């Protein structure tokens, strides 16, 4: 399985590079990201300012370094929260059939009925911008997708003969759920988690671009792009550079997701007869 290992290596190197540069930003950044020097506004890359300066003369390099932190962190937290919520509801709906299943499925359908981005915009818009409103919007819109997929996985595993065998051996529901059902579901859930983190980063970026997520003084890639909209004719690099960073981050996450998915299906190709 050389292909997936190769992909895995690139993805991990890219991701660690971005995350490290984000974490070490305070020491790496030459200037304070929010310090304004109106004198040197809109300069191209030069010796002092490696990536040039933006409309308010702030150093682009340090803003780029700080730029990734907020969205990655927020995306991870949001996805973990919505995954846990989704798993709890999905497993309950899948394992305990009957009324519990019907009620939970209907609730999931309601939340899935409303298009994700529109609901997110509505929530962020009404509650006003800010980190925790953004977090709430992200979790409310994405847990339904998780719970639907987890429910189908639970139904699939519950019907496996070895689960029936264990039940015949006298295993209690908790052991069946915790020690057998969930570990068997983990590989698919991990793949789902990686793709969902990627999607959350995208949603955060779009909301911040519309001014509903992270607010201007905060150095974030999408906020930088939205600020630079007015000057895109004169200083295009203000748009291109932060965009490229975001693209690399998303590309690495997607690559990681693909590599994990290939890794999971490896066993299927074993020779059945032998």
């Amino acid at each position, binding site marked *: 399985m050389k292909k997936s290992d190769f992909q895995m290596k690139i993805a991990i190197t890219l991701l660690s590079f971005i995350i490290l540069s984000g974490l070490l930003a305070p020491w790496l950044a030459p200037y304070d990201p929010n310090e304004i020097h109106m004198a040197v506004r809109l300069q191209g890359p030069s010796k002092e300012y490696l990536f040039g300066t933006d409309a308010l003369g702030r150093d682009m390099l340090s803003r780029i370094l700080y730029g990734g932190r907020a969205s990655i962190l927020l995306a991870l937290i949001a996805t973990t929260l919505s995954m846990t919520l989704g798993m709890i509801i999905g497993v309950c709906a899948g394992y305990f059939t009957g009324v519990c299943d019907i009620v939970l499925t209907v609730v999931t359908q309601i939340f899935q009925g409303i298009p994700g981005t529109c609901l997110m915009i509505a929530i962020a818009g009404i509650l006003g911008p800010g980190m925790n409103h953004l977090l709430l919007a992200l979790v409310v819109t994405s847990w339904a997708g998780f719970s639907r997929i987890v429910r189908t996985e639970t139904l699939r595993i519950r019907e*496996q*003969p*070895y689960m*029936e*065998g*264990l*039940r*015949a*051996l*006298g*295993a*209690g529901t908790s*052991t069946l759920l915790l*020690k*057998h059902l969930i*570990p*068997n579901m983990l590989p698919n859930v991990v793949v789902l988690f990686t793709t969902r983190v990627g999607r959350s980063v995208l949603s955060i970026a779009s909301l911040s671009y519309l001014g509903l997520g992270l607010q201007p003084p905060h150095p974030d890639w999408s906020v930088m792009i939205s600020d630079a909209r007015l000057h895109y004719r004169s200083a295009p690099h203000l748009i291109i550079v932060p965009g490229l960073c975001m693209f690399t981050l998303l590309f690495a996450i997607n690559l990681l997701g693909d590599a994990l998915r290939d890794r999971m299906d490896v*066993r299927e190709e*074993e020779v059945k007869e032998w």
Partner: protein
Amino acid sequence: MQDKAKILEAKNITKIFQNGFGKKSICSLKNVDITLNEGEILGLMGPSGCGKSTLARILLRLLPTDSGEVLWKGEAITKKCGHQLLAFQRGVQFIPQRPESSFDPRLRLGKSVVEPLSFFKESWSEKNRKRLQVLLTQLSISEELLGRYPHQVSGGEIQRLALCRALLLQPEVLILDESTSMLDVSVQAQMIQILADLQEKHHLSYLFITHDRELANYFCNRIIVMEKGEILKKGILQN
């Protein structure tokens, strides 16, 4: 066969499957009576889809019955639940038909075999370890197999490991739902021989479900034939 103590009984069991989208064959049981005496190998034969496996699942209390009851050593247990059932659950064990999916694919076989002890709150004492060693030699399973995963082991070995897992709980009844029909002829022969000498050593009683007439004649003391959810002729063959 003098009248031995009845160990497992089922009295006029009826079970109707609604023809929901999921269920292809409507396989219902119409007031089935079955008694398994101690130390007996009872064969249960019939075409596929006649209700053999459903009856087995009802006896194991994996499926609720519409009416009728299951008796364990004379006491009705259909209504009971929780810890009164512990003796029953430990006493009756089940060996499934499909070898490749009777173990959790994510766990090493050694762990899966030992795990049921924890279901009955039994610690992994020295006594149990010795008992496991004895069983491994009886079932001719090499120690190294316990370290492997289910997909790295052949069908015959998996069935023997399933037997080992069941026998570790010192059961009194084994319900074998076509446990050897998926195996090759030579492996089946070996499995039957092992089942035979296990029966003497641990004086177990078997409910042996199969659709292979010759195998049933050879192996079972008494054979019951089922057809579309009903028992045709009780005890046609007494050898």
